[in-house]
């Protein structure tokens, strides 16, 4: 415990130089602006910043990426409150009460609530990050091929179940992502699979171009498809957070922080689900249920605390299991690997101080969003007023540069274009993109786990089901899948038939 605190202190001291402070301020600003601009997601922001920081020392590069990540998730609340358009999906829940407050002339107060919720949420998640990562790291050392197979499988299943409105389509998107991960040379014989004789494809799809395509270009195609909406911003009051908003709803803040962090730890689920779950939990427990959706301070606080607490939560499985808790965390993981950090069960053995460096980065990012939360409103309004027809081509140029610069290959630009079209088509057919990306990230781990496990057990499937951690995982997966079927839910609940729910198979 004290050793951890000492390492955390060292990590903080390590970033107290002018260059690091400058990078913190700049990258938090970039993050907030990216987050505030509808159509630019945190995932894309981190992917672009990964490209930009590729030649930087790893510590500084990761500092930039984490500040961008935290800033982007926070920044989304600005357009949610001011325009009723979530800057990032994580802020969709904030639209409900944030914009309702803005329409009452309380946009400043709403932004203050978003700032305090986001700051406290990140801090709560940060504490869990510092406390849970070493514990989970120890547990992860017990994981073998069988457990990693199920864990990766769990990630795709849970992302498919929770990130869209239709689990069946989520699982299908996940399977397409897993298929994409099989393209290229396989691990045992270096056999080319689905490469069509293309030498570039032998290396498989690079994660960053694929993500830039699926999240960036697809989003730009959607923006080009939809008619631009005229920007109308309500007048607003002071953005300084009120202490009474925090003290009055401290239970909601704490609950949302814990929920957000837990959702973050779940592989692939991410900030939007964290915000909605925190919002729903706050509504259930609230004494002012009737205010929710009509300008509830508690609702906005819950959503903003939940989504920002999810950010450190999503980094916990990245560090300990090399399994991302969200799409932006997947890019962050790719960036860590590019910069020579090997996330996974051995991280507490090989680089125990790194975990505390990440916690320190998170703390600086929190300070960054606090500063910009108090000062940046008018600049952001100007940015939000820039027409989409100007933003879209500029962002697309950045997508092309971002895809190219990781490996300096034109092939990656084509991969970005391909995944962009795939992402757009899937979205038009109401398939969620997140499971596709998680399948792409985790497909390799799943295959290696399955084949290694089968080789070790000489084709015997029993250890996949009988080892204790494996058993817990597959039973959980089976339950998650089974509970999507209405007849199973009715059987479990022994309740009369409910009206047809959206989220069933």
């Amino acid at each position, binding site marked *: 415990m004290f050793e951890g605190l000492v390492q955390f202190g060292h990590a903080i001291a390590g970033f107290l130089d002018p260059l690091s402070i400058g990078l913190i301020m700049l990258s938090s600003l970039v993050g907030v602006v990216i987050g505030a601009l509808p159509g630019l*997601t945190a995932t894309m922001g981190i992917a672009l910043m990964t*490209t*930009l*920081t*590729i*030649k930087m020392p790893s510590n500084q590069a990761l500092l930039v990426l984490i500040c961008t990540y935290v800033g982007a998730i926070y920044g989304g609340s600005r357009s949610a409150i001011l325009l009723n358009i*979530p800057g990032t*999906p994580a802020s969709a829940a904030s639209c409900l009460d944030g914009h309702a407050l803005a329409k009452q002339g309380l946009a400043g107060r709403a932004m203050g609530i978003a700032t305090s919720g986001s700051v406290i949420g990140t801090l709560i998640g940060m504490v869990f990050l510092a406390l849970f990562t070493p514990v989970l790291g120890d547990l992860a050392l017990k994981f073998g091929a069988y457990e990693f197979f199920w864990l990766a499988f769990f990630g795709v299943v849970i992302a498919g179940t929770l990130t*869209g*409105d239709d689990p*069946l389509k989520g699982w*299908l998107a996940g*399977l*397409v992502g897993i*298929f994409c991960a099989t393209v290229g040379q396989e691990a*045992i*014989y270096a*056999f080319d*699979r*689905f490469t069509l004789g293309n030498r570039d494809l032998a290396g498989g799809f690079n994660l960053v171009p694929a993500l830039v395509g699926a*999240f960036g270009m697809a*989003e730009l*195609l959607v923006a*080009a*498809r*939809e*008619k631009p909406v005229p920007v109308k911003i309500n007048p607003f009051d002071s953005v300084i957070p009120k202490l009474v908003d925090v003290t009055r709803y401290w239970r909601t803040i704490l609950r949302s922080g814990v929920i957000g962090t837990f959702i973050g730890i779940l592989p692939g*689920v991410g900030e*939007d689900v964290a915000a909605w779950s925190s919002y729903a939990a706050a509504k259930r427990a609230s004494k002012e249920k009737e205010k929710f959706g009509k300008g509830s301070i508690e609702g906005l606080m819950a959503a903003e605390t939940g989504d920002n607490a999810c950010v450190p939560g999503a980094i916990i499985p990245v560090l300990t299991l090399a399994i991302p808790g969200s*799409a932006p965390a997947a890019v962050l993981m790719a960036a860590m690997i590019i910069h020579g950090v090997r996330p996974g069960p051995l991280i507490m053995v090989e680089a125990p101080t790194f975990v505390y460096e990440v916690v320190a980065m998170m703390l600086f990012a929190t300070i960054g969003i606090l500063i910009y939360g108090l000062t940046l409103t008018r600049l952001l309004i100007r940015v939000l007023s820039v*027409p989409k*027809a100007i933003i*879209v*081509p*500029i962002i*697309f*140029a*950045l997508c092309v*540069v971002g895809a*190219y*610069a990781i490996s*300096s290959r*034109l092939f990656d*630009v*084509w991969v970005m*274009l391909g995944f962009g079209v795939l992402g757009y088509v899937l*979205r*038009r*057919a*109401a*398939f969620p*993109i*997140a*499971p596709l990306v*998680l399948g792409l990230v985790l497909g390799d781990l*799943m295959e290696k786990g*399955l084949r290694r496990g089968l*080789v070790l057990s*000489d*084709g015997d499937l029993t250890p996949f089901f009988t080892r204790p951690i494996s058993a817990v995982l597959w039973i959980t997966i089976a339950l998650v899948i089974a509970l999507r079927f209405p007849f199973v839910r009715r059987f479990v609940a022994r309740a009369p038939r409910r009206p047809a729910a959206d989220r069933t198979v």
Partner: protein
Amino acid sequence: MDDHEHALPPASPRTDATAALALIAFGVLVALLSWRMDRFLAQEGTLWTAPGLWPGIIGLCIVALAGVLAVRSKRRARAIGWTAAARDDTPLVPTPRFALAAALFFAYGLVLVGRGLPFWLGTTAFVAVYVFLFRDPPAGATRPRNAIVALAIGAATALVVTLVFERIFLVRLP
């Protein structure tokens, strides 16, 4: 995860059925290609080490789940009709206008960068043309003035991207 998942417009049974059929065809193709992959039996390979094992399983899973989607879309169609779905209020631009935007994206990604044309020139051209074609001009602005504004935005973008990526952060540009 980070996507507009909760804002997805619902799809009609026809869209679902089309997607299901495409996925079934895709899954069958993946499974067939996986089955035909070398199993390296001469090198003591087994079923468990066969390169086609995993993609084959994935292909079959896609076929199975897409089959469920197809059946479900047929059931939904019986209840609400093939083209019905909850109303999506998002106003869309005319398809030719969208096709032009998409064509510009592809022209930039496939032709204007990395094919010998300097990055700054390709980027200036792409951004300027896009802005000129899609920006609603301010009231009273003439076409030449719009063209100059678009060109200035394009040139500024190219300049800033080149400076920031190539000169400050030493990143290679296409």
